[in-house]
């Protein structure tokens, strides 16, 4: 099977800081991949490079066989690379409906979906359990619901690769369970790449885990392999070992 996304020697410097340093990375279609690592390890910069929000200093990104290194972010979205923000950034002054209508009408314009804006919006809202709140201003939604709205917007883009940046941050435990179910749903027809700090979530969801440290990949493997990796324990999990 060919990978959906690969990077070669991908780097990004901010002044003297090498936030992402020569990363070779491959993501297989259909997998759920988690990226973990201590604060400042370059996780968010790395996914920002993938989504096109940040330009790489060097290296290449290939998505589905095409080199997208120099492609502007909005075009990558149209190819199917969707990104949900770490800090919730729904359109606060628009209704939940209008928030989701924006990605829905995008896929309609691109000819990737057919039908009516309203149908597409309601489908995405129902999938995230927000259908009853379609007419509510996003600013009036609870934090958990805003996070879900963010996911609904990502879903409505019909992504082939959905990048979730710390999706469970600030969610209550009960909401996290729903969220795990939701991501498994999404993974049925999309590849999911998530940055996550909540280890139980990572261990339950991820097929594979990539560990970042100081802008480089420190380790990669199944949840069990990562759990057993002493290097990772030193850098991140903080466990003491003999």
């Amino acid at each position, binding site marked *: 099977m060919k990978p959906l996304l690969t990077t070669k020697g991908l780097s990004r410097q901010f002044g003297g800081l090498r936030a992402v340093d020569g990363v070779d990375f491959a993501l297989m279609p259909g997998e759920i991949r988690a990226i973990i690592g201590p604060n400042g390890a370059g996780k968010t910069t790395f996914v920002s490079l993938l*989504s096109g*929000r940040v330009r790489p200093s060097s290296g290449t990104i290939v998505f589905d066989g095409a080199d997208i290194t120099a492609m*502007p*972010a*909005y*075009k990558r*979205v*149209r190819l199917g690379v*969707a*990104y949900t*923000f770490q800090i919730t*950034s*729904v*359109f*606060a*002054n*628009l*209704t939940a*409906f*209008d928030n989701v*209508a*924006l*990605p829905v*009408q*995008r896929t309609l*314009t*691109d000819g990737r979906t057919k039908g009516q*804006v309203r149908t597409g919006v309601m489908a995405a809202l129902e999938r995230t359990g927000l259908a009853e709140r379609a*007419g509510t*201003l996003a600013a009036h939604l609870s934090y958990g619901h805003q996070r879900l709205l963010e996911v609904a*917007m990502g879903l409505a*883009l019909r992504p082939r690769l959905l990048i979730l940046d710390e999706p469970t941050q600030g969610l209550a435990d009960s909401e996290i369970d729903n969220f795990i179910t939701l991501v498994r749903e999404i993974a049925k027809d999309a590849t999911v790449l998530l940055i996550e700090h909540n280890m139980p979530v990572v261990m339950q969801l991820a097929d594979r885990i990539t560990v970042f440290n100081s802008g480089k990949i420190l380790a990669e493997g199944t949840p069990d392999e990562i759990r057993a990796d002493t290097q990772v324990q030193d850098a991140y999990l903080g466990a003491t070992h003999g």
Partner: protein
Amino acid sequence: MRDASPAKAYALHIAVVALLFVLNFVLPDYHQGLFARIMALAVFAMGYNLLFGYVGLLSLGHAMFFSAGLYGAGLTVYHLGWGVPEAFVAGVACGALLALVIGLLALRTSGVAFMIGTMMFAQVFYLLILYFAAWTGGDQGLVIQQASRVVTVGGDALDLTDPTVRYMSALALFAVVLLITLALVRSRFGRVLVAIRENEERTKMLGYDTGANKLAAVVASGAVCAASGAAYALLFGYVGSSFASVQYSILPLLWVLLGGAATTLGPLIGTLFMYYVTDITSGFTSAYLLIVGVALILLVLFFPKGVLGSIRQRWLGWLP
């Protein structure tokens, strides 16, 4: 916001147009003339609102688009002897073309730099009008003779200097632009414009080329403002450089803020209000600007989102 009440919204707008139609037969001569002027200038405000209200781009140079229409129509009639319809189209085309060029340049900036950039371009435009005084009439301007302002429709000659013809022409333009604006802001394009205003970065990450959308909005806004300028030249027969001065870049901002930014009917209300406050108070005292100022302060205090903006926020959420 954009909920399931399109019928209500369209009914309201058609009612406003119908009311303005009836007013033509009710208003005394003086006010009939004033209303014609207000409707023509409300189109200017609506064009400004498109960019400022919906996209959130504050331009301080829209006088150049208005006067591009004004001179585009006025000069073709004056020098080339063009008919009224051709001259009107020429005016709109000038405004749209200028907006395209200015948009390409000014949209490289945002925020305060965009304000200053547009203001500077408008000043250049103003000075060019003065520089080419041989054609533009400089600060004296040009008067377009009554004979040039007659349209033949079928076999009938419509004289734009006739108060009723003038009123109805202004109303026709106003109604068309109003309904186009309403349709536009309810369209997919309108939704993207509002999204850019709210969070441009996020809009990009939903797959939108925000630069292209903003440019389209600048061109649409410029074309509407030019339509207002072209109509003004043809209806009132005067083309002058004062319309290109910075005052005419500030006025539409004021009208829109007063009436309610990002409301379809706000520009009309703002223009109407400013005109009448000025008109009434200047009848009593030469210090009328003082009273206008106080009225503005009171409005901002009690209607911070403009008349219609505040009404929408407090009572009528369905207002477009």
